[in-house]
C-alpha cells in the first residue's frame, strides 16, 4: 500500500496535553521549532564570542579578562558552535524537519518518535558543550579543527576537561544527526504524497535531502576521530599523539600520527561545507523563483548539480591540508577535484541569475536576502578558486584571506539564506508576517555590515596577517594601516552583531502583532502553502492528502492571469481556470501555456 493511501486511512492521534504537544512532541513542526530556537540560542552565544574576539583584535587590551587562553577558547567555541550546532542543526533539524513533510505532502516524518529523540540528543549535546564553559580550565582552546597533539596536551586551554566535553558533545550530536537524518531520507524516499515524483520535489527538499545523505556518510569520520582522540586523552593510547616532550617532560605517547586526524577531520569537514551549503542552495532557489515570479531555470540541471556537488565533496578534503605535508601528486589530485566542483556550483549560480533574468522581481525581504546570498556566495566561491590551487594556497594559508573566504562562503552566505528563509516561511509557521520595515533595516545592516567586516580581510590576508593570533603588535610586516583596518572591522562587526537584536525583536513582536498572513501570502506553488490551516495542524492535511499534478515552479504561465499554479492544480482545473478567465486569450498563447506546464515533469 502506498504511503498516501495509507495515511488517509489511519486515524490521527493529536496530542492533547501541553507536555506531549510542545515538550515531548513528536510533531515534525514542533520539533523543527525546538531545533531552530535551540540553534539560534547557541548561535547567539557564538555571536557574542566573536564580538569579544574582535574587540581584542581591533582594540587590543580593551577587555581586561581577554588573555591569550580566553581568546583561543572564544575562537574555538565560536567556530564549532557556528558550523555544527547552529548551521547544521538549523538547516537539517530546523528547516529539514519543518519543510520536508510539508513539501512532499506527508503527515509527518516516517519515525516521529526517533525524530523526537533526535532533538533531545541534540539538546543534550548542546548542554554538554555549554557545560564546558563551566568546567575546570574552561572550554577547549584548540581551534575549531581540534588538531592533535596540541588539543590534548597541557598548555592548551581546556586540555583537561574542555576537550573531553567537546568530543563527547560532538559524539552525541552525531547520534542526534544520524537519527534525524535517517528520518529525513526515509521520509523523502517513502512518504511522498500522490503524484509527488522525485523530480517534482521543490529544490529545497532536494538540497536538504542530499545534504542529509552527506551528513549520514561524513559524520562518522568526525565520530571516529572524536572517539580515537578521547581514547588518546583518557586511556593513554597513541592513535594521534606522537612521541612528544611537553613542558619539558616526555609524554607516555609515541608513534601516533596527527596527520591521520587531519585526514579524518577533513573527510568530515569538507562535506560539512556542503551539508550547510546544499540546503542553502535549495532554499534560495525556491525563494528566488517565488519572489521573481518565474520558474526556476534548468530545474533538472539544478538537481543534478546538487547531486554532483554532493558526490564530489567527498574527494576534495585534502585541499584543507596543502601545508600539512603530503605527496605533491596528492596536492595535484585534490586541486583538480576542487576546481572541478566549481563547475556544478557555477551552474547553479548561472541558473539563479537566469531565473532572475526578466523575472518580475519583487524586492521583498526574503528576496533581498536571496540576492545578497548570490553576491556573497559568488565572492566566497571565487576566492575558493584561489585557495584551491596549491601554489596560491601555500602563501595565503593561515592568513586572514582564508578567514575572509570561509566566512563569506559558509558563514555569511548560508546565514543570509537562513534569514531569507525565516522571513519567507515565518507566515506559514505562525500565521503572521514579520515586519517588513524592520526586516529591511535588518537586511541592509547585515548585508553591508558583513561586507564591511569580511571584504577588508582579503587585503589583510594579502598583507600576510596570520590568522589565529591573539595579538598583532610588534610585527614589522603588519603596517599601522592594517591595525586601523582591524579597528574598522571590529566596529562593523559589533554593529552587525547588535543589529541582530532587530531580528530577534521582530521574531517575537510579530508573533502577536504581525499582520495576519493568510495561508499563502507569497502566492507560492509548493505544497506547504496549500495546507488547509495556517499554521498547519497536527497531521498537516486534514483527511485527504494533497494530490500533486505539476512541479513547484509554474509561475507566470502564459495564457493565465493568475501568475502562479500550485502543485495541486490538475490539468482539468487548469483548463477550467483558463475558461473562467475568459476565452479572450489567443489560441497560440494557450498552446505555449500547455507546453510550459509540462516543464517540470
Amino acid at each position, binding site marked *: 500500500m502506498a504511503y498516501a493511501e495509507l495515511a488517509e486511512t489511519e486515524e490521527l492521534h493529536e496530542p492533547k496535553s501541553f507536555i506531549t504537544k510542545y515538550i515531548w512532541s513528536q510533531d515534525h513542526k514542533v520539533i523543527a521549532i525546538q531545533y531552530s530556537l535551540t540553534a539560534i540560542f547557541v548561535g547567539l552565544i557564538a555571536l557574542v564570542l566573536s564580538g569579544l574576539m574582535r574587540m581584542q583584535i581591533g582594540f587590543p587590551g580593551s577587555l581586561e579578562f581577554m588573555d591569550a587562553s580566553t581568546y583561543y577558547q572564544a575562537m574555538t567555541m565560536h567556530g564549532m558552535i557556528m558550523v555544527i550546532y547552529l548551521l547544521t542543526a538549523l538547516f537539517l533539524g530546523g528547516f529539514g524537519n519543518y519543510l520536508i513533510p510539508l513539501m512532499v505532502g506527508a503527515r509527518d516524518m516516517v519515525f516521529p518518535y526517533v525524530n523526537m529523540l533526535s532533538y533531545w540528543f541534540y539538546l543534550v549535546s548542546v548542554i554538554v558543550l555549554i557545560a564546558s564553559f563551566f568546567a575546570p580550565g574552561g572550554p577547549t582552546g584548540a581551534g575549531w579543527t581540534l588538531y592533535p597533539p596540541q588539543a590534548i596536551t597541557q598548555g592548551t586551554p581546556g586540555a583537561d576537561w574542555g576537550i573531553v566535553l567537546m568530543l563527547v558533545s560532538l559524539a552525541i550530536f552525531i547520534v542526534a544527526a544520524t537519527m534525524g537524518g535517517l528520518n529525513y531520507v526515509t521520509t523523502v524516499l517513502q512518504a511522498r504524497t500522490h503524484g509527488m515524483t522525485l523530480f517534482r520535489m521543490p529544490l529545497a527538499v532536494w538540497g536538504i535531502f542530499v545534504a542529509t545523505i552527506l551528513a549520514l556518510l561524513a559524520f562518522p569520520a568526525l565520530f571516529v576521530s572524536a572517539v580515537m582522540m578521547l*581514547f588518546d586523552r583518557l586511556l*593513554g593510547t597513541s592513535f594521534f599523539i606522537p612521541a612528544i616532550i611537553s613542558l619539558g617532560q616526555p609524554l607516555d605517547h609515541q608513534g601516533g600520527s596527527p596527520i591521520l586526524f587531519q585526514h579524518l577531520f577533513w573527510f568530515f569537514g569538507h562535506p560539512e561545507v556542503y551539508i550547510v551549503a546544499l540546503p542553502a542552495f535549495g532554499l534560495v532557489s525556491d525563494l528566488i523563483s517565488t519572489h521573481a515570479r518565474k520558474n526556476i531555470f534548468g530545474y533538472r540541471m539544478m538537481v543534478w548539480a546538487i547531486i554532483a556537488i554532493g558526490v564530489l565533496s567527498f574527494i576534495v578534503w585534502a585541499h584543507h591540508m596543502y601545508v600539512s605535508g603530503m605527496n605533491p601528486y596528492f596536492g595535484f589530485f585534490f586541486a583538480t577535484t576542487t576546481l572541478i566542483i566549481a563547475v556544478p556550483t557555477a551552474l547553479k549560480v548561472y541558473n539563479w541569475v537566469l531565473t532572475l533574468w526578466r523575472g518580475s522581481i519583487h524586492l521583498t525581504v526574503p528576496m533581498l536576502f536571496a540576492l545578497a546570498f548570490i553576491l556573497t556566495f559568488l565572492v566566497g566561491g571565487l576566492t575558493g578558486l584561489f585557495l584551491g590551487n596549491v601554489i596560491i594556497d601555500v602563501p595565503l594559508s593561515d592568513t586572514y584571506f582564508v578567514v575572509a573566504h570561509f566566512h563569506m562562503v559558509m558563514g555569511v552566505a548560508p546565514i543570509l539564506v537562513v534569514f531569507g528563509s525565516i522571513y519567507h516561511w515565518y507566515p506559514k509557521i505562525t500565521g503572521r508576517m514579520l515586519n517588513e520595515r524592520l526586516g529591511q533595516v535588518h537586511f541592509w545592516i547585515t548585508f553591508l555590515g558583513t561586507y564591511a567586516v569580511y571584504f577588508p580581510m582579503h587585503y589583510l590576508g594579502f598583507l600576510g596577517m596570520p590568522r589565529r593570533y591573539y595579538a598583532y603588535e610588534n610585527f614589522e610586516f603588519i603596517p599601522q594601516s592594517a591595525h586601523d583596518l582591524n579597528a574598522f572591522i571590529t566596529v562593523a562587526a559589533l554593529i552587525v552583531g547588535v543589529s541582530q537584536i532587530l531580528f530577534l525583536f521582530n521574531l517575537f513582536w510579530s508573533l502577536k502583532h504581525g499582520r495576519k498572513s493568510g495561508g499563502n501570502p507569497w502566492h507560492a506553488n509548493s505544497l506547504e502553502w496549500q495546507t*488547509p490551516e495556517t499554521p498547519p495542524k497536527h497531521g498537516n492535511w486534514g483527511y485527504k492528502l494533497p494530490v500533486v499534478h505539476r512541479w513547484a515552479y509554474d509561475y507566470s504561465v502564459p495564457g493565465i492571469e*493568475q501568475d502562479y499554479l500550485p502543485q495541486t492544480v490538475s490539468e482539468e482545473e487548469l483548463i477550467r481556470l483558463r475558461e473562467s478567465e475568459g476565452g479572450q486569450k489567443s489560441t497560440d498563447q494557450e498552446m505555449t501555456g500547455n507546453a510550459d506546464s509540462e516543464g517540470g515533469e
Partner: protein
Amino acid sequence: MAHSPQMRTLDLGEPGGWSSPDPAGGLLWRFQATKVAVRILLAVVTSLFMLFVVTFIGRSQFSDWQSLTGPLGPLGNTSALWVNTAFLVLASISIQVARMASRKHLRSTVAAATVIAGMMAAAFIVGQAILWGRLAEFGFTVSVNPAISFFYLLTGLHAIHIAGGLIAWMRSMERVWQRQAMPVVNAGLELCAIYWHYLLFVWLVLFALLTSKPETYAAIAALCGLR
C-alpha cells in the same frame, strides 16, 4: 478569482474520508519504510567501520606498530576468536531459520530459533568480554601499543552494535511471545536478520583485518596510497 486551486485539499466533504483502517497494509508499509531506513543505517555503519579500517591501515605503517598475531602477540592464539565467531555465525543462522519459518507459519520453530539466536548473540558478547578480560590479565591493556588499542576499539564498537541488534531482537521476541500475527512477526524478524547478517559480515572483515600479517597491511596501504 473564480476558482481557487488551493481549495482542492480542503475538499473533505464526504464522511467517507475516514475509511476503515487497514492494519495489514499499514504495517506492511511501515516495515517497508523501516527496511529502507535499516539499509540507510547500514550505509552509515559501513562508513563508520570503513573509516576505522582505513585509519587502522594508515596507522599500521608507522614504525612502532607491533603485530597482534606474532608468536608472543595477544592474538598469537586465535582459538577464542574462532569460538566467538562460531557463536555469531550460529546467531545469524538461527535468525535466518526463524525468518524462514515465520514465512511458513511454523510458530514453534520460530520461537525456538529466535530464542537460540538471541542466546548465541549474547554468547558472542560475553565471549568477547572474557577475551578482553584475559588479554588485560596478560598485560595487553588498551594503551600498550596501537594495534591492541585498535583491537579494543574495533571489537568494542562492534559489540555495541551487536547489543543494539539485541534490542531489535527483543522487540521480535516480544512479538513471538505475544503470539502476534505471523506476517507481523516475519516482518520484524526480517529487519532483525538484515542487520544481524550485516554485522556478521562486518565481524568477519574485522577478524580478518585484526589477525592479518604486517605484510598484508603494507600491501593494502601501498594500494591505497598510504605508504
